[in-house]
C-alpha cells in the first residue's frame, strides 16, 4: 500500500513561493492502477516526483509498501514527462541503462532489451542517438527503458502523448497486459479521458489551484475487461470524468 499523508509541497519561484500541495492525502492499494487527470499545471507531475522520491515533500510523509520514502527506490520505475533520455547514449544503450545500473549481468538483459526494442518498433533506429529520433520515437525509448526494469511500482507521466492513435492504442494494450500479468502498482498521468478510463482501475480528477484539490475519485472496476472500450459502461465513465473536469474547468475560469 502507498500512503501519502499530510503532505505539503512548495516551489520557490524567485522571491515568491508556490504552494502546490497543502495537507494532501492519498492511498493507493498494491496492484491498483491509478490514473491522474487534471488541467495543465495543476501538479500531476509534481505528485509523481514526490512518489518517486526525486522531490521531498516540504512537510508530511510518504510510505511505499510500508517503507518511508527517502530518495529513490530500486523497484520504482518512472517515465519522466520530457523523457529524460541521455543524449550521449544510443537507443539501445539508453534502454539497457536501467538494467546496467541495477547490476544485471549483460547476458541476462540482452534478450530483454532486444525484445522491448522490437515491441516498441525501434529496431531500425536502435543505434541512433536521441537527437536523431523523431518525437514519438524518443517517447517510446523512455517507455521501453522503464518497462525493462520489471518494477513493482510504475510511475508514468503522459507516456503516450506523442504517439499516433494506432501505436498509442497498441501500447495501451501492452500496458494493460503488463499490469494484469504482473499485478504491479501503476500511477499514470494522462490528458486523454479515454486512456484514463481504459487504463485506470481508479481515476483521480485534480483541480488546478493553489493548492491543488481533488475534485473527484472514480473507481473503474471493469478495467481490463476484453472489449471494454466498446461498452456503454466505458462511455458513461468517460462522460463522467469529462463532467468532473468541466466542473473544475468552470471553477478555474471563474477564479
Amino acid at each position, binding site marked *: 500500500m502507498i500512503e501519502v499523508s499530510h503532505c505539503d509541497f512548495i516551489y520557490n519561484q524567485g522571491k515568491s513561493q508556490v504552494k502546490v500541495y497543502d495537507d494532501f492525502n492519498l492511498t493507493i492499494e498494491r496492484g491498483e492502477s491509478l490514473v491522474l487527470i487534471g488541467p495543465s499545471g495543476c501538479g500531476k507531475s509534481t505528485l509523481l*516526483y514526490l512518489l*518517486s*522520491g*526525486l522531490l521531498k515533500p516540504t512537510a508530511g510523509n510518504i510510505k511505499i509498501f510500508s517503507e518511508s520514502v527517502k*530518495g*529513490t*527506490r*530500486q*523497484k*520504482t*520505475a*518512472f517515465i*519522466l514527462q*520530457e523523457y*529524460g*533520455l*541521455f*543524449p*550521449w*547514449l544510443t537507443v539501445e544503450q539508453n534502454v539497457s*541503462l*536501467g538494467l*546496467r*545500473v*541495477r547490476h544485471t549481468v549483460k547476458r541476462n538483459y540482452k534478450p530483454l532489451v532486444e525484445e522491448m526494442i522490437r515491441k516498441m518498433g525501434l529496431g531500425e533506429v536502435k543505434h541512433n*542517438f536521441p*537527437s*536523431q529520433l523523431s518525437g514519438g520515437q524518443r517517447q517510446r525509448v523512455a517507455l521501453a*527503458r522503464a518497462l525493462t*526494469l520489471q518494477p513493482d511500482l510504475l510511475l508514468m507521466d503522459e507516456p503516450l502523448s506523442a504517439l499516433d492513435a494506432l501505436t498509442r492504442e497498441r501500447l495501451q494494450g501492452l500496458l494493460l497486459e503488463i499490469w494484469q500479468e504482473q499485478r504491479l502498482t501503476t500511477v499514470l498521468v494522462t490528458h486523454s479521458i479515454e486512456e484514463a478510463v481504459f487504463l485506470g482501475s481508479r481515476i483521480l480528477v485534480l483541480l488546478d489551484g493553489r493548492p491543488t484539490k481533488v475534485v473527484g475519485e472514480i473507481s473503474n472496476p471493469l478495467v481490463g475487461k476484453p472489449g471494454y472500450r466498446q461498452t456503454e459502461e466505458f462511455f458513461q465513465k468517460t462522460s463522467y470524468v469529462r463532467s468532473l473536469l468541466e466542473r473544475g474547468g468552470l471553477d478555474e475560469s471563474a477564479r
Partner: protein
Amino acid sequence: MNLQGKVFQGKSWGYLGAIVFLLALWQYAAWSLQTPLLPTPQAAIAATIRLFEADLGKHFWVSTYRVVLSTLTAFLIGLPLGIIMGYEGRIDRFLAPLVYITYPIPKIVFLPLILLFLGLGDGSKIFLITFIVFFQILVTTRDAVRKVQSETISSLRSLGGNRFQVYRYVLLPASLPDVFTSLRLSMGTAIAVLFFAESFATTEGLGYFIMDSWSRAAPDEMFAGIIMMALLGVGLFIVVDFFDNIFCRWQHLNGYKEGK
C-alpha cells in the same frame, strides 16, 4: 566513411592554409622589421632541420614526456575532484573558496619550497606543471557539472541509480565536452609553464633550448625551438580532438538537424 574522409580533408586544408598564412605573415614581418630579433622563416626552418639531426629531437621528446605526464596527472586528479565539487554542494561550499584563494597565486613563488621537497629532477618540473594545469581542469569540470540539467540527474536516479552511478553515467559523460575544452586550454598552459619550468636545473627540453639560444643571441635557433614547440602544441591539440571525436560522438553528429 565518405563523409568522415571529407571532414578530415577539410581539416588538412585548413591547417595548410593556416601554415601558409603564418609563414607569409612572418616573412613579411621579417622583411619590414629588418631586426635581428626576428629571423626569416627560411633561416628558422633551416636551423630546425640542421638542429633536428643534432639534439633538437631529443629536447622535443623530453618536453613531450613532461607535458603529457603532467597533464595526465592533473587530469586524473582534477576531473574527479571537479565533478565532486560540482555535484556536492556541501563540499563545494568549502573547497570553492579554497580554490578561489589559491588559484590566482603565482605558483612560481613556491619554487624554493617545491625544490626543497622534490629536488631538482623531473619531479619538481612535472609537479609545477601539474599544479597549475590541475586548477584549470578542476574549475572547468566543476562549472560543467553545475550546468548539467537536474532533469538528467533525476532521470538516472529514477532508474535506481545510486550516487556513484550518477557520477559514472551522468555527470562524467555530460561534462566530457567541457572537459575536452579545458584539456585543449590546459595543453597551452602546460606548454607555457613547461617553458618556464625548463629554465631551471635542466639541460634538456625545448624550454631550455629556447632560453639557451636566446642567451646565445641566436634567433634562428631560438625560432627553431619555437617551431618545435608549436608542433608539440598542435600535435597535442590533434590528440585531444581525436579523443573528443571518439568520446563525444553524440556532440558531433553529421545528421542534418544537427549542423546547419
